[in-house]
């Protein structure tokens, strides 16, 4: 199970990318913003793509009564997510090493993948909840209170993934480099599972 163990270790270590690269990216372009404003969502917090993008997004959002983009200390997620990811990396590496040494069944690899997938889905669910809250919980004293054609108040939830036109803005929300690294890392742990199974059956 040497090969499978190594793949498992590499797969889990790829998650380290989350500490360096953004998980998600939302870009806001408009006629007045030929260079779109953008935010990079990391597991430790939200940063502007350019130095002052967050400040400028907040400046625009205040017209429609959106809350300022949360600071690190304002969301428990930015505290918990890095710990969970760190723990999962450590677990994955340990499982990989034990697998490498033959002290553990290859099924653990799949087990790790399932746990990580559940955590990932929970993370996405939580992220979507936040987007809904952010886009709909608007200041009643907002400068611009717009309505949909059916008379309901307009809300501004950015898409979880994909493109959407919101007022004068073109909003693009897509996975970042970090997300691709988890995707490949998790794929590798599945590969590790099958390779391990093959090695075991030999």
């Amino acid at each position, binding site marked *: 199970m040497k090969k499978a163990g190594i793949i498992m270790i590499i797969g889990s270590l790829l998650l380290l990318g989350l500490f360096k690269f953004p998980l998600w990216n939302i870009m806001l372009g408009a006629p007045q913003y030929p*260079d779109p404003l953008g935010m990079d969502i990391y597991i430790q917090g939200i940063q502007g793509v350019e*130095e*002052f993008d967050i*400040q*400028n997004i907040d*400046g625009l959002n205040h*017209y429609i009564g959106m809350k300022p983009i949360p600071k690190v200390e304002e969301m428990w997620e930015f505290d918990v997510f890095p710990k969970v990811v760190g723990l999962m990396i450590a677990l994955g590496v340990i499982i990989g090493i034990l697998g490498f040494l033959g002290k553990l069944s290859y099924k653990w690899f799949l087990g790790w993948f399932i746990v990580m997938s559940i955590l990932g889905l929970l993370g996405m669910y939580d992220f979507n909840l936040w987007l809904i809250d952010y886009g709909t919980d608007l200041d009643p004293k907002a*400068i*611009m209170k717009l309505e949909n054609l059916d008379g309901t108040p307009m809300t501004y939830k950015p898409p979880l993934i994909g493109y959407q036109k919101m007022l004068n803005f073109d909003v693009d929300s897509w996975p970042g480099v970090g997300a691709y690294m988890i995707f490949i890392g998790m794929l590798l742990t599945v590969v590790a599972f099958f390779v391990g199974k093959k090695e075991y059956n030999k």
Partner: protein
Amino acid sequence: MKKSINILISAIMVAGLVSCNDGGTKKSKSGGQGGLATNAAERVYVAPGEHDEFYGFMSGGFSGQLGVYGLPSGRLLKVLPVFSQNPENGWGYTEETKPMLNTSFGFVPWDDSHHPDISQTEGVLDGRWIFINGNNTPRIARIGLESFKTEEIIEIPNSAGNHSSSFITENTEYVVAGTRFSVPVPQKDMSINEYKGNFKGALTFIKVDQETGRMNIKFQLMMPGFNYDLSHPGRDKSHGWFFFTTYNTEEAHSLLEVNASQNDKDFIAAVNWKKIEEYVNNGGGKKVPARYAHNILDEHTHTATSTMIDKVLTVDPLEVPGAVYFLPTPKSPHGCDVDPTGEYIIGNGKLSADLTVHSFTKMLDAIENKKFDGEAYGIPILNFEDILAGVVKQPGLGPLHTEFDGKGNAYTTFFISSEVVKWKVGTWEVLDRQPVFYSVGHGMIPGGNSRKPFGKYFVALNKITKDRYLPTGPELTQSAQLFDITGDKMELLLDFPTIGEPHYAAAIPAEMVAPKSRKIFKLAENKHKYAVLDNSDVRVERDGKEVHIYMNMIRSHFNPDNIEGVKVGDKVYFHITNHEQDFDVPHGFAVIGANNAEMLIMPGATETLVWEPKQVGVWPFYCTDFCSALHQEMQGYVRVSPADSDIELSWTLGED
């Protein structure tokens, strides 16, 4: 009756025919230069959203400013205030910028700006700074090409008519400023009749710090009292020398148009500045009392300071043997131009029909072998025949200036015959000539006075406009014409109006400047004494009759926007910090009855406008730069109470 009507009709028809013919003749007269027959329009068309290939910096002439144009489109991108107050953005009106226009004569709100020159490294444009001279009250300004702001102005003492300026040496070691109107040095009460032999023409060498661009007068070469008209540095092989044309070697002081045109030849003064620099570095020269202002705008405090300096180092040319020579040049030479190789020095004798070209190699040889033809005030005059490289025979009338395309061709402007003439350097043969409209002064090729010209376009900067555009009464704009010079023949592509009177210009490929153009000032780096970086520091303070309002602004409000406790007779300082950190979101500030101007405040900057309320009442102020959908809401009030009122200062934002 019927018959007479018929006659009348045919008379009218004939008249119409005649006038049609007139129109036709006119059209065909200008058809040859027009773009319809060619694809000229396409070649100057910059599609919406696209950028020009070059920045063109054209002196604003008697506007005192610098015009920034895109080439080849000829679109005006910006009027960059330099020597003149600019109420449009508050330059010279705000407390921060007023010191920039300080001089030994006090506050001077205007000048006549002439010759922009872009900084160079090894003779190639580098796009760090652009320098320009103020002709009337002698000054040199340095403009930073990141902020496109005038960052420094230094006054030139012992000078008048600062015209043979501001030309730089090929590593921007020096900016040079020469005197066109010689004056008594030091200035004194004396008879004008005693001009001859007593007046001096100072040639000033200003050292440029390579890191900061800061200027300091290294030395002034005190030359005989001629008129030092224009200058250019030696380059490449002649680097280390500087050449100045002179006229009025007759030293006339009245009716110069006649009296200064009598000598068959005037001089080009060749100055070995490296030799003088060495002399000065070894303790040479004489410190003499002087009085001149040195004004610096600090980019972190956003505030200018003006320092009065009281001494200048002067050098007597006779004290440095071998440093200065006179090159005899026919007929009151105006432009003094050096080709990209540094070998040829072109004297544009403005009353001559020929162009005189001196050879640098021959000049050195003549100096070495002492081929002198007398001397003037102790300065050796080289023998004309010995230094002559060639003559461009009869190219036109009234040559003024020459630029180079880097392909061995020179382009000389002719004021009197109103044309530009292309000729071959070395063979001196005329290759092409094109009319210009009208009476061209300087011509400009991007980098055309450097070692490496970008020889794609030639811009004629004309003195006379007449019928080129729709008439606007007796006072017209000036005109410029853009030629494509990539082919054998010059091709007129575009005719466009310019601000002021564009004397000289300089252009640089846009890619050397545009990427580093600043978008905002960082608020975190704002070190202005009165900046309000944090909302908790917003306040109003009284100091006797002075009231200081520490205010900030962001879309779309002022903080504070309601102020009470100001009294008639107070001097109110609005210190306003723009909290935006977004590109192209300046805010403006104007208050009713201000006796100065408005001010524009760039993102991250702080500016101060003084307001002296004279009437009791509640007076509004507002943002002048349409900043957002709520721009109209960006306003506030100041309550002004009688002088003896005891209302305390108070300030609020968003309170009922």
